[in-house]
Structures are given as C-alpha cells and as structure tokens.
C-alpha cells in the first residue's frame, strides 16, 4: 500500500473508528490513541494488506480488539461491559436549559452513559448504517442480541427525551 492509497482508503475511516473506540473507552484521548495505533499497525502490515478484502471491516475489528485490550489493562474486562449501567457524568441540568438544543445535549450525554453493548449497537447501526449481520459479527453477538440491545437503547433514548421535555414543561409552568 502506498502512502497515497493509505490517505485515500484508510484515513477517511478515522471518524467511524474514533466513535467506535469512544463507545468502548468513553475517553476521547484514549479513543484517538486507539485509532492512531490501529492505523499505524495497518501500515506496518504493508504488503500483507493485499490479503485484506475489506479494509474497513479489518480496521473496525482491530479497533474493537485494541479498545478491549485497553480496557483489560485498566482492569475492566469484557464481562463488565454487559449489563452494567454506567453512571452518567454529572448531569445537573440548569433550570434554564429548556431549549431543544440543551435537551438534545442531555439526551446525548445519556446515550454516552448507557451500557456499552447498547452504545455500540447504536453506534454501528444508527451512526454508521451497518446491517444487523455486520454488527453481530463485529461485536461477537448473535442477531437477536443485536436487535434486543438496539431496541433497549432506542427506547431508553426516547424515554429520556420525553423526560427532558417534561422537565422543561414543568419548569415553564412552575
């Protein structure tokens, strides 16, 4: 792979990889490092990349593996990713945050605090448009688990949105 090919075929994947890593690590700096490491690893493989049929799938898989390795080093295993509700970072909604924009911001924060499997499925489906089969392969899940996680995540976001609207309405009427 030449540097030009790398710029045209690999670098454009950076944002997808970054968001994917971020869902695992919940830290932008760590996610960025992960993406950089994966891309440099791909470059080092050099001639071997001619055997890689789908560079995007390879990059996403490596991103996942690298992120999981990082989590292990932080003493957080893959098991802990399932079913654990991570506490949101302090979401103290100011009383004057009733605008739609602010409500959306809260919902986004809520999204970032959901269990990782749900965040990951939402990322791959709603942000990146992957099929259920692709998501299942990437996350080592069966298809029914993909759909269940997606259902739970979307429902939670919807409920949180309703909550934010109700909170805003309460504020206005009080």
């Amino acid at each position, binding site marked *: 792979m030449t540097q030009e090919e790398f710029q045209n075929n690999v670098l454009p994947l950076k944002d997808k990889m970054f968001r994917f890593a971020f869902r695992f690590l919940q830290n932008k700096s760590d996610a960025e490092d992960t993406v950089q490491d994966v891309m440099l690893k791909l470059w*080092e493989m050099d001639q071997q990349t001619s055997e890689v049929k789908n560079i995007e799938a390879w990059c996403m898989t490596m991103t996942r593996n690298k992120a999981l390795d990082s989590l292990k080093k932080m003493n957080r295993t893959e098991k802990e990713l399932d079913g654990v509700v991570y506490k949101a970072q302090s979401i103290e909604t100011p009383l004057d945050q009733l605008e739609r924009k602010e409500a959306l911001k809260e919902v986004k924060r809520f999204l970032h605090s959901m269990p990782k499997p749900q965040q990951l499925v939402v990322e791959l489906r709603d942000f990146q448009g992957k099929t259920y089969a692709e998501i299942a392969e990437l996350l080592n899940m069966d298809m029914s688990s993909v759909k269940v996680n997606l259902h739970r995540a979307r429902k939670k976001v919807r409920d949180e949105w309703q909550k934010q609207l109700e909170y805003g309405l309460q504020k206005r009427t009080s």
Partner: protein
Amino acid sequence: MDYRREHLNRLAEKFWNGETSIEEEAELKQILSYSEDANEWDDLKAYFEMVDQDAEELQLGEDFDQKVLAGLTTKKPKVISIRKSLYRIAAAAAVLIIAVSVGLWSNQADPNENDLANTQPTEQEIQEAYEQTQEALFLISSKMNKGKKHALSFNKFETAQMSFKKSRK
C-alpha cells in the same frame, strides 16, 4: 387516518423495537424530513437530530491526519534482499573467475605436453587464488548495505586474475 400516517406509525413502531431494515430507516428519515406536523413524531426527529449532532461532535481533526502520516514517514524502510542478490552475484563471480584463472593456466601450458601434472597450478598459486577470492567476498559482505558503489570491489577478482597471468609468464 390516512395511509401515509398509518405507514409512518408502523415504521416508527418498528424502529423503536429495533426491527426496521436499513431501507425502512432511510424511508422514515425521508418522510420525517418533510413532515408538516412537527410535534407528532418529535421523539423520532429528536433521535435522528441527536445522532447527527453527536456524529459531528465526535470527530477527529486535521491534526490527526498529520500525526498518523508523520508516523508513516518515520517507519524504517523495508530491507530489500539486495544483500542476498549480491551474495549470489559475488559467489557466481568468484567461481567464474577461479574457473577462468584455472583455464588460463591450462592454456598457457606447453601445447606439446599433454601431461596434466605439468599444467596444474602449484599449491601456493591455488592458495593465493583462494585467499584473494575470500578477501574479495569479505569486502563485499562488509559493504553490503552501502549501495552499488561497493560492488566495484569485484575489481579485486580482476586483480587476482592479472596476478595469475603474470605469475605464469
């Protein structure tokens, strides 16, 4: 309730249940984009807005590209097997020159004498040829990574050949 609204309701329900196909989700977004009633499917619109906003915020900047590209240029260059090729060339050249040298010795022998013993190089001459060849090979080995110019050490073989010729005169 008109067909369009019913269809949209069905799609919305499927969407929240995580059962829509990619094509259905695209259709849902498209219908919502020109929906006149802003409130009816506000939760759906908000969901898609949130995804778009989050995607915009979670992005790597241009400096990331430069960082990665800088990492590519500092990569050690691949060691191409010129070394192996040069070894083979050196070995072949050494064999050739020794063979030519031996041939010259044979040609310079008295043509009237077919006695092979008289046309054989002496033990000393053989030793000298061997040592000079070995020296040439060591020189090539030591300079292997320094490029083509060091292949000129093949001249050493020519020197060995010339010295044999002179010794026979």
